């Protein structure tokens, strides 16, 4: 078989797909988190930002086109990411038909062990999240292009806000191991920098998760209304 076919068929190849799509998702959440911070500049700022997201690239691109490009990239990434995750998970399950009575954990982290379920939770979260803040169907009083209002309305319900926070925790773990793991999968290692990889993964994961959490927290705490 040709070497390129080998890449798509082999488990390492699938891990690479997972890593690459993972990176896309990482960049997205970072950008999204940054965008969300406009929230603290008040309703107008973030509405403008929402509008900007749809008008960016004009006149070359029509209204919302840029956004759609991003959406397509995201959808594809998520699908590929999930498919790859699912297929390597299956292979690994099959690789140990008879389990141990006990297998001690020495090196592995909680994050590493929860990647699979974590991913599923994140996925579920995203679905709800879209219904809540993009389509509005899960939102008490959804107003198109008024994210400020929508968020306040949504996070005013404490259970929602809390579940968002939990999702952020899961995402944080997923990113922490995901980033380190991605370094390994993509062969990015160097004796001089290896010791920074985990730290970098942690920093990235915490910044993104914390940035996201800031919104529901501040609404829940009643600082913003």
């Amino acid at each position, binding site marked *: *078989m040709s*070497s*390129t076919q*080998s*890449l798509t*068929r*082999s*488990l*390492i*190849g*699938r*891990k*690479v797909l997972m890593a690459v799509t993972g990176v896309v998702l990482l960049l997205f959440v970072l950008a999204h988190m940054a965008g969300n911070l406009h929230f603290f500049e008040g309703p107008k700022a973030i509405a403008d930002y929402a509008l900007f997201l749809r008008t960016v690239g004009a006149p070359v691109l029509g209204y919302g086109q840029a956004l759609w490009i991003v959406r397509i990239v995201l959808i594809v990434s998520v699908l590929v990411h999930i498919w790859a995750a699912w297929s*390597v998970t299956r*292979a*690994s*399950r*099959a*690789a*140990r*038909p*008879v*389990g*141990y*009575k*006990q*297998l*001690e*954990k*020495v*090196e*592995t982290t909680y994050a*590493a*062990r929860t*990647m699979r379920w974590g991913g599923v939770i994140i996925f579920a979260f995203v679905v709800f999240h879209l219904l809540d803040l993009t389509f509005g169907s899960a939102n008490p009083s959804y107003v198109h292009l008024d994210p400020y209002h929508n968020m306040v309305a949504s996070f005013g319900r404490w259970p929602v806000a809390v579940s968002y926070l939990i999702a952020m925790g899961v995402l944080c773990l997923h990113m922490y*191991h995901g980033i*380190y*793991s991605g*370094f*390994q*999968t*993509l*062969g*990015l*290692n160097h*004796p001089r920098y*290896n010791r920074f990889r985990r730290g970098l993964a942690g920093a990235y994961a915490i910044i993104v998760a914390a940035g996201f959490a800031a919104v529901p927290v501040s609404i829940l705490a009643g600082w913003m209304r």
Partner: protein
Amino acid sequence: MKLVLHVWRQAGPQAKGDFVRYEVPDASPDISFLELLDLLNESLIARRMEPIAFDHDCREGICGSCGVVINGRPHGPQRHTTACQLHLRSFQDGQEIWVEPWRAKAFPLVKDLVVDRSAFDRVIQSGGFITARTGSAPDANAVLVPKRDSDLAMDAAQCIGCGACVAACPNASATLFVAAKVSHLGLLPQGQPERYSRVVKMVETMDAEGFGACTNHGECMAACPKGISVDFIARLNRDYLKATLAPPPEGAGWSGAA
């Protein structure tokens, strides 16, 4: 010292297995874990029972024959130590010890604690070598090897093929074993001509043998009696990516490519 062992007994691949409880009333802390099994076996023979089958040969931590999971740790609790070099000092008097075989689809069980690791041999057969027909070699000093490279190659080459990495891996992945060989040969100038064909073939065989995927848990490194580093896994992935995504031209690392 007194020890209570729960040892996995299984008459054959098809037979159903289970833990059997044994007591060793008076073991000296200075004997090795395998000597403990010898002792137990002697007592079984004395009671006209069939002794426990377990693989072993050198009893010096170098042949890679021995290997059992002791209280959830392949080769037992002591780092960088094979079961044959593990001494009872690392246990407390009266401790309960659970002994299981390596568990992986690619390592089918043969009997009791003995498993079939020939999958490793097939991985090597598929490409884990440097083609150097006997008699065809240039003077050994004709090719210089920077000390740094040969030391690093030696770090990887120390693998004893015991399979503890697979046993310890939550995914039963053989990545560390394959990474060690790919790195050992790929780091040396002599290994360059086959560098990329080698990594592709070995990775394909590894999958075909039914090992799992590496999700970078690092348990393999912790269990490895030679402390082979997961850095070699990144190196394996890097070489594999090079070979598959940006294949260097024929000749450069492709000799013998299928």
